[in-house]
């Protein structure tokens, strides 16, 4: 029986000698998947679903805290739109890593181990969990892992996680009405007529029938 702090100490020790994410036994332990089935081949397409409606969510409170902090570092409130956490991105991440399908099962260890790495790295550098860090400290870590191709070797696995986690966060945020409003998607409304772009815009771009 090990408590979380012991686990992290063990991880830090392990990290010094073997690439963190390749430690099989540990991976098996944290990624054991609760039995769950999917929505089947004929789900009700009309009713709204929320994460947890079809299969149970599986992240711990601590994992969700780290997940939320990282979502908001990736897409923070910038005055024009709120942070990712506030539109349910953490629930989505939890739904994603708890899902019974191959693509999600592949992501599950990447996300869970990556979140653990964020905390371990925060502890190593700043003696706090990632969620408790101030923005400059969070950025100090993220700056080392935000470029998958340019990351230093010791950050390569963490950078791969960050890249995946950023895509999950971006995908979840910009597929909500809040995200749509931010980037200026104004469709999904019935129209009596569709006339295409305004003539002035086409003219400005040098496009349209006159410029074919």
């Amino acid at each position: 029986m090990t408590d979380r702090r012991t686990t992290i100490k063990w991880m830090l020790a392990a990290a010094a000698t073997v690439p963190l994410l390749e430690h099989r036994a540990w991976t098996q332990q944290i990624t054991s998947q609760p039995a769950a089935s999917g929505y089947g081949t004929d789900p009700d397409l009309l009713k709204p679903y929320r994460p947890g409606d079809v299969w149970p969510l599986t992240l711990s409170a601590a994992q969700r805290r780290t997940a939320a902090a990282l979502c908001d570092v990736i897409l923070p409130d910038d005055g024009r739109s709120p942070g990712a956490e506030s539109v349910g991105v953490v629930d989505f991440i939890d739904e994603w890593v708890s899902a019974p399908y191959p693509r999600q099962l592949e992501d599950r260890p990447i996300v869970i181990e990556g979140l653990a790495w964020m905390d371990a790295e925060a502890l190593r550098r700043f003696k706090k969990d990632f969620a408790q860090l101030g923005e400059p400290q969070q950025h100090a870590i993220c700056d080392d892992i935000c470029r998958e191709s340019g990351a230093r070797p010791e950050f390569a696995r963490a950078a791969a996680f960050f890249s995946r986690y950023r895509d999950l966060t971006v995908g979840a945020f910009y597929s909500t009405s809040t995200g749509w409003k931010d980037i200026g998607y104004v469709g999904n409304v019935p129209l009596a007529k569709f006339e295409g772009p305004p003539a002035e815009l086409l003219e400005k771009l040098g496009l349209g029938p006159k410029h074919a």
Partner: protein
Amino acid sequence: MSSRAPANQQYDVIVVGSGAAGGQTAYTLSMEGISVLMLEAGRNYVPEQETPMFQTPDQAPLRATASPEKAFGFYDSTVDGGWTVPGEPYVQSTSDPSRRFTWWRARMLGGRTNHWGRISLRNGPYDFKPHRRDGLGFDWPISYEDVAPYYDKVERLIGVYGTSEGLENTPGSPPGCLLPPPAPVVSDYLVQQRAGRLGIPIIPGHRAVLTQQLDYKRSPALLHPGNPKAQKIVADHMKARAACIWATDCGRGCSIRANYQSTTVHLPPALATGNLHIITDAMVSRVVLGANGRAKGVTYIDKKSGAERQANARVVVLAASACETARILLNSKSASFPDGLANSSGKVGRYIMDTVGSSLRGQVPMLESLPPLNEDGATGEALYAPWWGYQDQQKGRLGFARGYHIEFGGGRRMPGFGALSGLDTLTGGSYGRKLKQDARRYYGSFVGFAGRGEMIPNENSYCEIDPDVKDKWGIPVLRFHWKWSEHETRQAAHMQTAFEAIVQAMGGRVMGPVKTDGAQAISPGGFIIHEVGGAIMGAERKSSVTNQWCQTWDVDNLFLTDGAVFVSNADKNPTLTIMALAWRAADHIADRMRRKEL
């Protein structure tokens, strides 16, 4: 929508399948006063009640992304289908990935017409006589002129937008057949201008979407001359279909019947005649042959009870989709047909063709940071590029024999989960406030290109019955064999370089690698879901399964009205041609029945 058939009723015709082929066949026959029993392997499906018209990604599990259970995304209309169907396996002959064939099925009333892309291009004159042009493949026993009147009818009935441009082997339509095309979006205009400078013509696409209400005053009399009952019924149904409301993806289906699906266009008027009965959850296993050498009926599994039943009729029509039709024939063995019914030629299951597919995406600075615009439009294919290389091919300049067209789309479409994924190649790995600025900048600046090209039939691409594997109903399943020839792989490589050239001509950059190795560029067999062939028509019984009327050479009252009879698979998407041939065959059946010849 389905009506349970009264017990022991006698039918003139059994139609197996309810998609484009079965829908059109049943429509034409029932309008002509012929009684039809339709058997559909999937469940009843009611688009008016089941279509998720405005549901958003965040209302669906996993933001509506694809899963093995909903392979085209949660809101795709496909029910009980996809690349796999639970309990209904199929077998690959090899583990070599380049020689696999993946088979998309939909077990639902209306089949794949509920979710298809609605692209409705006519085959051209060359496409019916390809062997005559380049010595490859086979010629059809019919020409464009034989099919043209039926293209006219289908377009008038289902509603297809487009224009007649008069380009080579790219037929237009007589006045009154086509609806006006939808307005293009900004990225469409840009592709049109820049591809045009490369000599690639960009013209309005043809899709089965109502850009305005159908002509219910004039068309019924043209569709059903001398048949006032049919005219009245079809006019009523044309009136009941709304025009497009320029929102929600057609692949979800359409609850207002503004696009073509068999369930909203073919089956309602056919049912209104009182001549059509539909049994759903009826999985046909084989055709029953009578002692007189004629088809007596079919056996099917009632999936609800698991019981095997038989239905009889004067004529049997298989319209189960190309491979499923071949499967039913191959499973219908008897003393007189030990290798499968109507297979004296040995050609049942042979010459399966899909469409050559390859795609590439570009990012275009000119499209960055544009003002918010509603660009949902017709949700696809306002414009496209028909094949432009016929003359070069004739002169032997291209290294592959047949053509392709380009489908493309971009702009400020509904952002789903993947709309802004992988941005780090553009942003240098931004996160935080900078990433939000980047998202605003790059959203809408991508344009995707997909080539759709002709595959030439070959001896290595076919299906047969697996000797061991059966589905959960006990019906032997198909085993697939597949091989692309260099005509297809070189064509796929050509697509990649053409897309790259267009992206560069737009001042854009290609996202991801340009695959100049055709074997890498080409999509796997079956992937484009345009499989046809497997029971080709022909002028001679020794080398084909049916005659030009989709009637099997071996069994007088057995017809195949789906893509199985295709002799070639032009770059033009097959569905419109399936419907035109089905209408033509059904007219022939009706005529022969009236003359008591069937």
